[in-house]
């Protein structure tokens, strides 16, 4: 590094030393090649009709217009919003509950349980999907368990059911995401000054009052992070649906990202797929902005 310092020091003095920017240049080049350029290209392609090879034909806003008038696409967006409940709200509620309990109760070997509960988060979605497909299978552990409990009437092909497939895929998302929320909140709880809890106790607060008056307000920042992360995942999720149901039965678990894949790789409609991709990006951007604007700290 010595020679590098010499190099920098020998440069004539300017108001801003641009040489520092050289250090981000390699990373920025990668960012341009692998993020900004594809994004710009997708944006351009979204105004064209293109089979994936050959010439792109300019069609203006036609792809966007057709997407907005496609009932299947609109219903797939509704499915995404239902999945937000499972991918985002449930994990955050469970994570908060666990964090709240851990504040009050000292459990032996807590690090072990924390690691176990966090495990789903580090598994590949493909592995998770295949495992849960097996759990939900007609003769899988879930149905075997129900039969064992004498609840034979309840057992069914969960992922093959028009009524249950979507919520049951959603529950897999809850299982995957709650560990993430929990770790985030436990870390947040640890930075709350213990004096606050002592003061709450002196004021005669029970566990619930303590949670709502001390823990919850202090975790606002972490909740925003968890919301942004999980809502984004709920909307752009692809692998879990692809592995478990493929959007079926019928279109009951179809989500926009499945349509993007099908249009681009099965139907020769890369232009239309691109426009749907841009729409999905805008939707995520809008929702995240709303979350940040509504929940940010008021000065």
């Amino acid at each position, binding site marked *: 590094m010595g020679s590098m310092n010499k190099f920098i020091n020998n440069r004539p003095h300017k108001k801003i030393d641009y040489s520092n920017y050289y250090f981000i240049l390699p990373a920025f080049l990668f960012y341009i090649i692998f993020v900004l350029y594809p994004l710009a290209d997708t944006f351009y392609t979204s105004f064209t009709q293109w089979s994936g090879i*050959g010439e792109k034909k300019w069609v203006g806003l036609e792809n966007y217009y057709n997407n907005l008038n496609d009932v299947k696409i609109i219903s797939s967006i509704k499915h995404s919003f239902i999945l937000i409940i499972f991918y985002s709200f449930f994990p955050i509620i469970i994570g908060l509950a666990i964090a709240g309990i851990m504040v009050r109760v000292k459990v032996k070997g807590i690090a072990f349980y924390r690691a176990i509960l966090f495990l789903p988060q580090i598994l590949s979605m493909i592995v998770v999907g295949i495992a849960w497909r097996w759990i939900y299978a007609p003769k899988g552990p879930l149905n075997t368990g129900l039969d064992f409990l004498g609840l034979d009437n309840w057992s069914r*092909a969960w992922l093959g*059911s028009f009524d249950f497939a979507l919520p049951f895929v959603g529950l897999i998302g809850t299982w995957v995401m709650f560990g993430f929320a929990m770790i985030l909140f436990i870390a947040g709880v640890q930075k709350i000054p213990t004096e606050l809890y002592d003061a709450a106790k002196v004021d005669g607060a029970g566990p619930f009052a303590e949670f709502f008056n001390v823990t919850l307000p202090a975790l606002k920042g972490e909740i925003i992070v968890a919301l942004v992360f999980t809502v984004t995942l709920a909307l752009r999720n692809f692998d879990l649906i692809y592995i478990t149901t493929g959007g079926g*039965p019928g279109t009951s678990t179809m989500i926009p990202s499945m349509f993007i894949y099908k249009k681009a790789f*099965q*139907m*020769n409609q890369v232009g239309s797929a691109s426009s749907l991709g841009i729409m999905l990006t805008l939707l995520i951007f809008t929702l995240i902005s709303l979350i940040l604007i509504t929940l940010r700290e008021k000065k």
Partner: protein
Amino acid sequence: MKKLMIFITLILTVFTFNIKAETLRILAEAGDEATLTIAAAQFEESNPGVTIEASYLGWDDFMATIKLKLADNNPPDLAHGNQGFTVDGTLIQNGLVIPLDEYADQYGWKNLFAEGSLAEFSWSDDGSTWGSGSLYGISPVAEDVIVYYNKDKLKSLGLSVPSNFAEFENALSVSNNAGELPIILGGADGWPIIHVWGLIEGAFVEPEQVRSWIFNAKGTEFKTSSRMKAAKKLEEMATAGYFGSDSLGIGYDDANAMFINGDGVFNLTGTWMTAQLNEGMGDNVGAFAMPRNSSGVAGGGSFALPWHISSKSSNPDLAAKFLDHLMSNDFVDDLMEIGRVPAQAPTINPTSKLQAEVISASNALVGANAKTFYTDWSTPGMYDTVTQELQKLIGGAASADNFMDAMAAESIK
């Protein structure tokens, strides 16, 4: 030492002058790996200096990338496509593959099959119309959708192999009443239901009419009264519980494993399953072509995936020569030994009882000119539509009328 070096150099020089080193690059769908491994070894032996480099991709990956691979500046010389506008049509429209008529005449491929049976490989040169025109692909393998059955179960139910559709329906009803699952179906994957639909459709609609619709879905009426009958029949079968209550939660591989383990009296699937079912069930599995409602047989089916020669291939003659090896009469027996169903009549005895029955079912379909291809070939969006609508029909979420309306709407898109 010096002498040895001179000797080696001499030998190498002789070989280099005598034999032109050539490489043939092949990209295939993974189902062809066993076939190609044998064919490549034979071809390399009889053509010294030729090296075959074959690579394989599983179905989903293959279909998602084949167009891009052939559009590349350095594409494989020989590659699979897929019948229909989605893959083959797009390849021809963009000039990525060459017509094979010259090679077909040179090697006599057209004489191997009945008049008109290569229609699924025939296209106008701009790739806009399908079913006639130049020959753009060829395949040595036939794949048909037929009915496999559990022999013990059929016997213990007091049934025999049905000879018309009414008898088949009766067998389903008897199985159901006896507490057996009549038809095992891996409906979670969607596409296996296309094969079931193909058989029911074939039982009611003239095969010629089905093919015309697939070649030209936009210009051919889908909602005919005979097809309506077929849709109603499928709805009736689903309502009667002939596919069980869990079929939409079972994948294709699981369904076949369950059939091997004794679930289901009938299994409506393709001849590509022959080797696997024979290995799992031995003499307990039989096969027949689906009998039609009136008379004769019908069923989904076609040649296997077409082979195409890239328009950028530096050595199309060598690629065609290899294709001719695949199409040759000698190779038919090798196909039989791997358990595949050759498109040409085999010269050796079947390797198993099941293969014998499968080949006779396949011959019956060829003889009656009753192969009806696959519904999803018809339009690029049809795969999605037909799998979704069939899942709804099987799962009771839509009626036969809903199904026919959705299909007709997709046909004219």
